[in-house]
């Protein structure tokens, strides 16, 4: 329908413009079109094509991308493309005449056609795109189903599809129910799940909670100074403890803890457990310390080494299991049926092998704990006053409640944690440190102003370690 040789050079220009293209900093040397498949509109308009393209990058491994293209005859107005100019490839000659070629996922008609290809037994009347993400694009059908279209293709099972299908199989119900997966030649192309209508994510609820807490100070009804109203006048209550403030998040944090433990138990059931020693984790952690902390950070380096050498000494840090890998407040959704966990792709920037490698469930726990810290810091950044002590109080209250819920649930089934609380704390501290260092590196590269958030955590953890000896 369209010539691969004509398409390839346009793709080389088109790909770097896309948010989901992961190698923006690399120069594309060559785009090779592996295949073009007509999914809809063979001989009629609009047409839907699936293009499988191999991209050769300067100084990096080749990457494989899936591009879904829409075709409509030139001269016909396409309102849905207004404001989305970067998503247009250009005009091409086809067997049916000249056509405008663009990202098909912006075209509602073609997005509905795509659903019919992937899940012929499902039907929908409407579709809307959901915010673009780093490695995939999501479409919501009738507020009932969500289709994740993977942009970058990897050999083997996509971790998202693999984990969610497995979790559903072993009876873990706190993931959106898988409805259909689209696979070709052993490669996952797209994944259809139930859409959790009416839900809101943990990050937004946590920020709501913090906003309410801070407002107890900033707009709290303080009485006039002295005894302006005479004896016996009622003094309005002023909350200082997050437990007494409006918008308390602790009950939710505890429930997230419970769901997290259930998720880990289900992952252990579905993917098995592996025996590891603390030493197995330590090497990569040490490398990260070297990589992130410099000679000027002697105290932190010292504390970090203590934490890691403590981990190294632990012969039984609990089993390694398949983990979520990128666990934080925005990955959990509050629905009317409780909390759900999303997005098992892991950190997209890391290689697949690393993302699917078994690890300690405390790695995810550390991720969530770090997320409480980020929530407090982000909420503080909107405040004019220094309310950091309140932010800390919020963080520690929700850490505690999350841990209480997690540990209680984790104790209910097959052990997935070290039984000795001291060992558990040591392993958790190491993963928290590791996560905070990773964040530091990330923030320095991308948002230098934010680097102080993980820095605070690294300082806290390393100074605690120094005191403990």
């Amino acid at each position, binding site marked *: 329908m369209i010539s691969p040789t004509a398409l390839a050079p346009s793709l080389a220009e088109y790909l770097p413009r896309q948010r989901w293209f992961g190698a923006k900093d690399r120069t594309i040397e060559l785009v090779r079109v592996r295949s073009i498949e007509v999914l809809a509109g063979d001989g009629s308009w609009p047409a839907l094509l699936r293009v499988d393209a191999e991209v050769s990058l300067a100084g990096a491994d080749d990457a494989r991308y899936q591009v879904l293209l829409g075709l409509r005859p030139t001269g016909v107005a396409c*309102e*849905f493309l207004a404001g989305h100019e970067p998503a247009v490839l250009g005009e091409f000659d086809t067997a049916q005449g000249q056509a405008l070629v663009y990202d098909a996922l912006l075209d*509602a008609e073609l997005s509905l056609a795509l659903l019919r290809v992937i899940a012929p037994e499902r039907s929908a*009347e*409407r579709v*809307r795109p959901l915010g673009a993400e780093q490695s995939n694009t999501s479409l*919501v059908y009738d*507020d009932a189903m969500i289709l994740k279209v993977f942009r970058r293709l990897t050999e083997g099972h996509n971790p998202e599809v693999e984990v969610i299908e497995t979790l559903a199989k072993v009876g873990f119900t706190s993931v959106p129910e898988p409805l259909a997966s689209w696979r070709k030649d052993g490669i996952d192309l797209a994944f259809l799940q139930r859409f959790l*209508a*009416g*839900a*809101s*994510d943990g990050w*937004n*609820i946590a920020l*709501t*909670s913090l*906003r*309410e807490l801070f*407002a107890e100070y900033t707009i709290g009804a303080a009485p006039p100074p002295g005894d302006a109203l005479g004896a016996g006048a009622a003094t309005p*209550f002023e909350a200082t403890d997050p437990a*007494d403030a*409006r*918008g*308390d998040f602790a*009950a939710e944090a505890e429930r997230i803890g419970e769901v997290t433990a259930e998720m880990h138990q289900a992952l252990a059931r579905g993917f098995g457990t592996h025996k590891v020693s603390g030493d197995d984790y330590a090497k990569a952690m040490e490398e990260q310390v070297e990589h992130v902390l410099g000679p000027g950070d002697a105290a932190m380096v010292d504390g970090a080494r203590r934490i890691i050498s403590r981990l190294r000494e632990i012969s039984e840090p609990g089993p390694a299991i398949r983990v979520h890998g990128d666990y934080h407040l925005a990955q959990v959704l*509050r629905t*009317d*049926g409780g909390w759900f966990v999303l997005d098992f792709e892991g950190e997209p920037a890391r290689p697949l092998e690393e993302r699917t490698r078994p690890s300690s469930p405390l790695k995810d726990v550390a991720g969530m704990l770090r997320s409480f810290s980020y929530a407090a810091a982000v909420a503080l950044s909107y405040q004019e006053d220094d309310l950091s002590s309140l932010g800390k109080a919020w963080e520690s209250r929700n850490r505690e409640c999350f841990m209480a819920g997690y540990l209680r649930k984790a104790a209910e089934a097959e052990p997935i944690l070290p039984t000795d609380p001291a060992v558990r704390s040591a392993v958790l501290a190491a993963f928290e440190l590791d996560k905070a260092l990773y964040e530091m590196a990330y923030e320095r590269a991308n948002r230098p102003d934010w680097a102080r958030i993980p820095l605070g955590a690294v300082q806290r953890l390393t100074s605690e370690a120094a005191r403990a000896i």
Partner: protein
Amino acid sequence: MSEIDRTDERWFQRAVFYEVSVRSFFDANGDGTGDLQGLIEKLDYLSWLGVDCLWLLPFYSSPLRDGGYDISDFFTILPEYGKLGDAVRLMEEAHRRGIRIIADLVVNHTSDQHPWFQESRQSTDNPRADWYVWSDEDKKYSEARIIFTDTERSNWAWDSNRQQYYWHRFFSHQPDLNYDNTEVQEAMLGILRFWLNLGMDGFRLDAVPYLFEREGTNCENLPETHAFLKRMRKEVDAGYPGRVLLAEANQWPSDVVDYFGDSDECHMCFNFPLMPRMFMALRRAQRHPITEILAQTPDVPEGCQWGIFLRNHDELTLEMVTDEERDYMWNEYAKDPRMKLNIGIRRRLAPLVENDRRVMELFHAMLFSLPGSPILYYGDEIGMGDNIFLGDRDGVRTPMQWSPDRNAGFSRADFAQLYSAPLMDPVYGYQALNVEGELRDPSSLLHWLQRMLQVRKRHPLFGIGSFEVLTAENPSVLAYVREWEGDVVLCVNNLSRFAQPVELSLQRFEGRTPIELLGRVPFPRIGELPYLLTLGAYGFYWFQIVETPLQ
């Protein structure tokens, strides 16, 4: 002369109810206690407000040890309230104005002063010996919980005369009737017929889950109880079409729906768990406490309806929330131990929301648009306060504040003669807050409420339309769509005390235009993209979604 339409058998699905205590409303004869004649004189006010049906707290003869819920004669009126003729005239006058009247009816028990009980306790073989539940020992039905935990230690009480224990689920001066005795069933149906013949439009059935007792059960919601309610319904349907039975069953929604039967038990049931959840959602600035309970609430059968309310004469019911949530609500609303009663909280709406006019408006907007028929509590339309220093539930039954005159314009009796002092504090006292002042102030809560009720009446969908919660990323925003026969209303509520943005997916209304219902203000046309709205602190919108009018 009646202006109500008896052939309209589903009026209650679209009606606005108003719960009123005759004692507290208006005193026409100047004896210090409100009366039926007083209520008649205020019917024009209630009609103006937009009330479709009055729910009267018990007005029967009673020793008044439980606010009249301890009835000693079902066929006579409490003398302070008037005579039977006054009750008949009240019904006629109300009907003339298109207002219906339902009355509280206690079917589970009577006062221990009721002649039935007095006769029953004489001996074990008198004609009414089996009209109550008697036992030689106090161990039977041990699985039934004690409801009034503050005052009662057992569901059994000793009667020294008969030398036996009698069963009581509530206060010990309220013995439970024995519904296993068909004479009792017949007697109760006779009471219903008596009032229906006089023109009563229905009953709010008090404490219905407890009619029967069976060993090995918690003695609540038993099949025998449902069977009797079905019998009662049959009786009403056969002889008195267009009347309504409203069940008070303070249970989980999934149990409460059983009281609708297959549309052959009660026409209406209270939705108890919704209200505490609204207060919790407010406290957390988060919609999930509300949507969670709505998601657990089954659809009502055809021809039935929920009764929903913000406050009523009883406490804020916490029986049905989980322990964690109950602690949470207690902590928030009851820092003062005097505010605790049983396991609930007795406060009026305004003090509960710290007299925040914006919250009162938001909550009423939700009350008028969530699934169910709204039930207002007298005085809440002007934001009346309460007196937590009064015992029992009297703190929320102070005199209606009509004007800044003596005794709040409620009575011309001497102050000392009043059944209860009107509120006189600087915030809620009658000199600061009264109907006259609210009527004179065009921007008052009262005028706002009256206007809202007018708007609500134009859209039957608020009573009988479908209900769908919309997805909103912002957890502080609760948005839902009501729809009925092509009429569509979108309601958006901000539960936060701060301004909030929200993006709503309104794709299925693409091309149509939202018109704000209070001012008929057209908003931008709904396009393909998520619809962006900004809400002020505690703000809300009602939009009618219409075909885009000509520009």
